[in-house]
């Protein structure tokens, strides 16, 4: 059953950390430390998730069914059996899209009022 619009809207706006985690996982499955590194890299070091924040977000996002633990493991050579990998759900993708759309509309409104981002 596809998620209803109401279910999606109920979670918006997403906390920044959650959105970043969703964006990283949208690309491929990651383990916890991998998520931290990816987010840091993508934001040019602006956002460094702490371990506690990461796992608190992960716990909540699992409860909200935005992400699940992935059963697919990487190739045996790279795999560390203690690690857990996380995967974005279809619902997570829908929520991420909705959040990005919300931000885009916000940017549009801001431009119309003459407040443009520093870098276009």
């Amino acid at each position, binding site marked *: 059953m596809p998620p209803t619009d109401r279910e999606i809207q109920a979670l918006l706006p997403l906390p920044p950390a959650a959105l970043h985690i969703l964006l990283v996982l949208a690309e491929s499955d990651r383990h916890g430390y991998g998520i931290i590194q990816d987010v840091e890299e993508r934001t040019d070091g602006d956002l460094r998730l702490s371990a506690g*924040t990461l796992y608190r977000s992960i716990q909540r996002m699992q409860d909200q069914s935005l992400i699940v633990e992935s059963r697919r493991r990487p190739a045996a050579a790279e795999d560390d059996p203690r690690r857990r990998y996380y995967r974005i759900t279809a619902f997570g993708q829908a929520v991420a899209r909705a959040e990005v759309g919300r931000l885009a509309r916000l940017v549009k409104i801001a431009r119309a009022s003459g407040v443009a981002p520093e870098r276009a």
Partner: protein
Amino acid sequence: MLLIRLLLWLYPSGFRAEYSDELTSLYRERRAATSGPFAVARLWGEAIADVLRVAGPLHVDVLRQDVRFAIRSVRRSPGFALTVVCVAGLGVGANTAAFTVLDTVLVRPLPYAESDALVRVWESPPGYSRVEASPATYRDWGVLAESFEAMAASTPVSANLVGRGDPVRLEGAAVTSSLMPMLGARPVVGRLFTESDDAESSPATLILGEAIWRNDFGADPGVIGSSVLLDGEPHVVIGVLPSTFRFPNRATTFWRPMRFPPWMYEDRDNNFLTVTARLRGDITLERARAEMTRIMASLESEYPDSYERTGATVNRLRDEVSSQSRLLLLALSGAALGVLLIACTNLANLLLARGLMRGRELAVRASLGAGRQRLLRQLLTESIGLALIGGALGVLAAGVSLPLLSRLVPASLPAGDTLALDGRVLIFALTITLLTGIGFGAVPAWRASRRINVTELRDGGRSGGLRHAGIRNVLVTVEVAASVALLITSGLLIRALVQLQSVDPGFNAEAVVTMRTWLPLPEYEETRRRGEFYERVLEEVTALPGVQSAAYSSFLPIAEGGGIWPVEIDGQLDAGEFPTASLRFVTPRWFETLEIPIVLGRDVRASDTFDQPFVAVVSESFARRHWPDRDPIGQTFTFAFFERSVVGVAGDVSMRGLERISEPQVWLPYLQAPDGGVPRYAPKDLAVRTRNDPLAIVPAIREIVRRADPRQPVSDVRLLEDIVAGDTAPRRVQLRLVGAFTAIAFLLAAIGLHGLLSFTASRRSHEIGVRLALGARRSSILRLVAHQAAVPAGAGILIGGFIGYAAGLAMHGLLAGIPPADAPTFAAAITLGLVMAVAGSLQPAVRAARIDPATVMREGGG
């Protein structure tokens, strides 16, 4: 890594179980990628900050879930929740009420600057522990004692204030100028006394209390420097003290300087000064006591007549509350704790039973992945939440009862006359509420979370009943023991009160109204002038319709107990004995008015004047003590400066109240007082015996006094009956509270017992059904269930009896001679305990015996 593992314990258990491996390995990787001591230190710093920052919100998440869960479960069984709230409320309410009084009377610092260092210093002649000091003694203490950084003397005074509006009678204090700075007093307007105010040559000055300044002077700052008439003498108002300043007690409304004319220092036996002092910072109470003992010894060697075997008593001002008030309050607190104990056991019982009922639900949750700690936490959140609601109700109930509780605060205390539920009380209430929530929730939650297993899902939640039997028996024992102990305690207090109320005060208080006309000095210094006033007032009052008789005396019995003078009788000066008696000047018909029997001789007469032979009426105990085998009439003794001969013997009167032993009494004719000699004893209390409603004639009496002296106020209009009743009032209030606590406890314990047995019986209904089906007789089933109650209840009664006896021993001083092992009390308490056990177990036992085996077996199969 150990640090990380330790830090992880700050997280909620569920989170830790889920992610601790991940978190540790994450930190391990980071650590591996870091080199250099500073970078490593920074990593650890970040890790600690991270845990501290995230753990809080995580716990809030869990709490939110648990509260939601608790609300759902309360909705499912509102009756259960209501019971828990009410029972917890009763426990917390009782303790909050008791604590409020206890805190105000015994714990809270007195309203003075650095009040811990304040002490009272008394003379202690043989047989007395606390006697006021004479001016000479006070002066010598001030010079000799090095333990104190300041010392001050005070004495209560009262005066007629004539100024704006009607004349009023005010209670005040004469104080040395050192007193107020020592107590840290600050005036609202104006200034405090200085040493120059103590000098006899200075103009008379006065400091007003804020209440009187607001009520009688319209809070006019211009009152400073103005002159008011106090007992007819002009006094300059120099300052106003805030209503928070209360010294020596809360009735004090004005202060005037204490002045010692030189002649006052000559008489070392003129003891009327209350001495307050402040200990030096480095001096302990023991050192001050030792020093005062040394000083008294040296005074004794210098003035052996005045200080024979006289020591000094030094007490902290805070500890000057009478031991009786202290005991009353401790008994009250003990009763309150008993109620809480019973409330907690009751609730624990209830929760245990409920834990069993919920076994299935908890097993489902456990099988869905909730850890044991998680369930424990959830159950505790529920019980603490309910306790908090109950606690709030309890505090509300305590707040409503504050006016009643206020009567337990002794009037002699400088504390405020209204009790308040302030921060301290609320913190206490919160603490006790949390303890209650944990106390009754922890064991059942622990049990419930421990015994979760899959069999619970299978067998429909019937197993486990027997495993709880042990702890439930303990709970029953505790409940019964606590309520029997409380029953004994209140029984003893009731018996003591009855005993006291049956004490004959020595007079008949019925239909007597009393009031006070305090004739001011120096206007009424002459005895003859006072006599004219009394005669005129008494003559007109006696002529009023409905008045049987009227008379004046120095003090009313019970209302004022002091006025003790030494008695000297020729040939009876035994070494080591210091006979004393209480002194009262009276007008004729005093004995008739109070219905004190004159057993021998005659009353005082208006013809017993200063130029006639000095006579006295003495009490029976006085006559018995001094002339045990002779006719007392015509015997002489020296008392209050003069030799007097006995003309009458009257019955003994409880001058000091029903609970204390009174000295023998001496009554002297009002006209045989020297002019201005013993001003404190000038008759001021008018007693009027009426044929019908005594209060109805008060306006007429006021009018008579006004005609006799228009500037003379009438104050303290009271029924003599109220004075006698007031003597036992704190006791009655306390008894009412302890009685209420006991009733609550008894009821709770009975309900608890009943609920417990019903529950056990219903849990065993299947087993009972099987027994019946196998041929057991119904009477044996009845015995089986009743036996289950009998053993723990019997143990409870026994233990409760011992505790009650111990409590009785501890409150010995309150029992007015009733022995702690008072047989009627114990019999009644034990009977009630048995009745409670039988009544609680009867219905469940009968119900169990009536079980239809067929029905139970059918149900049990499903």
